[in-house]
């Protein structure tokens, strides 16, 4: 891939950048979940690798979080945009060369940022932990080039309308740049106090709400119709989904600070808007599930569909939790407990990751024109992810409920720590399954690129039978 960085744009084979983004994302997925599993081990066995600041929990936690969000999830998004945006516009990617450079800049910037975080060089703000120099780099050299490439491809499309997926892609790449520049204002201009605290969560909320959730959903709007051959159930419901994301998802930032001394009107407003997030959620889930009509056998037979639909089904409990856990009636109980960690992983490792994994599986096979090397490995990957994640989610939810009870019944803290211990071990085992699955996935995709059966021109990967 790197040899194309200095080639002429016309000489770069179509899809090169998507492949580069795709493989980068899988590598980050392996690294990120490996770090996650290491952290989990530390919370279960605090003296596992000790006495060195680089392996201290406080130095490693944020490296895990940023490796999975900005390495795995965001680069998988980049991959999806590189091949889906042009496909839906019946055109080529505006610039393969920009795409390749963008991915390179992304890998370099992210590595640099993670090393800094690892060393403890942090802004002290959750989710916007990167020092402001890195934040600026992310906005200008990671988000803006992606934005330009997607927008130019959409503008130069050869179709009359713009399909749902591309509305989401185009608006999300734009919004993520805005969110990065606005959310980090406290660091750029040294804003302090409650403004800083609030903007921290404004950033965190919107990076999830205007980047991760809509782009993941947009991917499903492509993969399901493409692989099943069914048209999207309803374009109108797609509209409802899109507009309610922009209006309802961008407003409830303050619900992350329900127990902090913010103005009461702001908390109440955020809480109501937070329940309204159920509108885009229900629109999305119903639209996708209804698109499956008549093709449910593919849920069993086809790997990409299985991943996507599992992710979409997980969006149901995810949004039910999300909508209600932020109301005052419930938030006081579970705030700050493992329940929230379970919820965060339901969103990112459950819902979002499953959709992106499908996009990467599908995209790499389509671009490389090679059938997946091994279905068996694919199946093992799927089940390790699903069982591992479920173990994680169940154990952390229970741990969270224990913590919540401890909190309101004023149980001495150490007893809560003791009671949580078995669940910490279970979480570590679950997370390690996910990590193992990803190592297999990397191998499987590598072998696909080298030895997968060549797909004849004009055929889709799912039209060929699996061989191994």
């Amino acid at each position: 891939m790197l040899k194309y960085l200095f080639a002429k744009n016309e000489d770069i084979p179509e899809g090169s950048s998507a492949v580069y983004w795709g493989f980068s994302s899988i590598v980050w997925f392996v690294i990120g979940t490996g770090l996650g599993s290491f952290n989990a081990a530390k919370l279960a066995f605090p003296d596992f690798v000790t006495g060195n600041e680089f392996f201290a929990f406080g130095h490693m936690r944020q490296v895990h979080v940023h490796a999975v969000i900005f390495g795995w999830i965001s680069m998988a998004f980049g991959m999806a945009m590189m091949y889906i945006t042009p496909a839906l516009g019946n055109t080529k990617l505006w610039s393969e060369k920009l795409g390749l450079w963008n991915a390179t800049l992304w890998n370099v910037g992210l590595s640099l940022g993670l090393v800094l975080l690892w060393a403890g060089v942090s802004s002290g703000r959750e989710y916007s932990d990167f020092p402001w120099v890195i934040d600026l780099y992310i906005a200008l050299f990671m988000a803006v080039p992606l934005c330009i490439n997607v927008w130019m491809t959409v503008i130069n499309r050869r179709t009359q309308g713009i399909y749902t997926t591309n509305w989401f892609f185009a608006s999300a790449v734009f919004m993520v740049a805005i969110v990065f520049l606005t959310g980090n204002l406290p660091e750029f201009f040294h804003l302090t106090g409650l403004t800083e605290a609030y903007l921290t969560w404004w950033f965190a909320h919107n990076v999830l709400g205007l980047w991760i959730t809509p782009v993941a959903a947009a991917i499903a709007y492509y993969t399901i119709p493409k692989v099943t051959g069914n048209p999207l159930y309803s374009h109108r419901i797609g509209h409802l989904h899109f507009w309610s994301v922009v209006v309802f998802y961008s407003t409830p930032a303050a619900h992350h600070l329900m127990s902090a001394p913010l103005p009461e009107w702001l908390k109440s407003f955020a809480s109501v808007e937070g329940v309204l997030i159920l509108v885009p959620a229900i629109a999305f889930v119903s639209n996708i599930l209804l698109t499956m009509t008549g093709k449910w056998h593919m849920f069993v037979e086809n790997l990409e569909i299985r991943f996507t639909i599992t992710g979409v089904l997980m969006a149901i409990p995810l949004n039910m939790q999300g909508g209600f856990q932020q109301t005052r009636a419930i938030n006081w109980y579970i705030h700050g407990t493992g329940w929230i960690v379970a919820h965060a992983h339901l969103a990112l490792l459950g819902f979002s990751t499953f959709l992106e994994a499908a996009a990467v599986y599908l995209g790499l096979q389509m671009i490389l024109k090679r059938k997946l090397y091994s279905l068996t490995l694919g199946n093992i990957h799927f089940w390790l992810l699903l069982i591992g994640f479920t173990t994680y989610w169940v154990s952390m939810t229970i741990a969270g409920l224990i913590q919540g009870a401890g909190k309101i019944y004023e149980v001495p803290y150490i007893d809560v720590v003791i009671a949580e211990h078995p669940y910490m071990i279970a979480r570590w085992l679950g997370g390690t399954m996910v990590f193992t699955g990803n190592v297999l996935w990397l191998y499987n995709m590598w072998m696909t690129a080298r030895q997968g059966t060549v797909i004849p021109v004009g055929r889709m990967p799912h039209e060929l039978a699996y061989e191994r």
Partner: protein
Amino acid sequence: MAFREYKIGARMFGLALGGSMCITLLLPAFDFASVSSTDVALDKAFTAGHETAFNLEDPFLLGWNKPLKITLKADPKTGQPMAAKEVYVYQTGTTFPAGILHPRILGKGVEELSVQQGKIGEAQKGAGAVFALAKGSFQGAEISYVENLTATKGWTPAVVMSVAKDEDVSHAGAGKTMFVREGCWWCHTLLPEQTQDWQVFGAPPMLGDFNGESPTAFGSDRKAPDLLHVGSRNSSREWMMLHFFNPRLVQPHSIMPRFDYLWGDKDASGQKIDFDKWRAEYIQYRDGARVTPPEVPAYSKNSEIRYLIDYMMSLK
């Protein structure tokens, strides 16, 4: 083919996102700007100095560019004993906190008194300054404001430092840097909740308790006790020392990491600390092969752990 057919959509999008940002950013900003500093906020902001996380004056979070908090027991000019008074010493070149650089951050009342009576406008970074809280009245109410003692009494940083003994010096500002760098806030919060929580962890903070603080480092994920008032629950430096070196010495079930690396190479008497030996002996103790745990080395007075413990003690 361009965007012609999406003109309305594009405008609606701008309106929706712009409207959302107005409600969620602009309106709260007005609210936050109208909040005046409480005593808690003034104390926190002047103890911690300008910025505690990554900044160009302390890029590696080593606790540079931080003020000292001194408990004065004698008048620095005359040397006469006096009632203990806490002052914040900003030595030459130390960046002043946001409230000095932009007094409106102090909030209504505090700003006016600090500028007019406290002479904070005369503080100069090149010369350094000594600040303290003072009481004054504004529109009939008694409030605290910031006094620049260098301007009002001629107490320069050098003079104040010359009468301060080491036990009167608190490095809580640098200690907060350690708190941010070491990620204590991934397990501990600095925010007792407005639920029953406060009966164990102390009063939840108020709206005006944060002016000028950066970062606030509330923490969102609590795997351990809230620390906002830990200094009033537990003010034993010895306990803290044992607990940071290895939490399992005082709390066998703790999942807190060891922070022995904050001791640096040398202990209080300048001897090299033999960590390997300590760990080996600790394992013997843990496995029952030794009756007593190995002795925890006393920390030197300029070690990072001293800063951190000073910070814990400041969380009243």
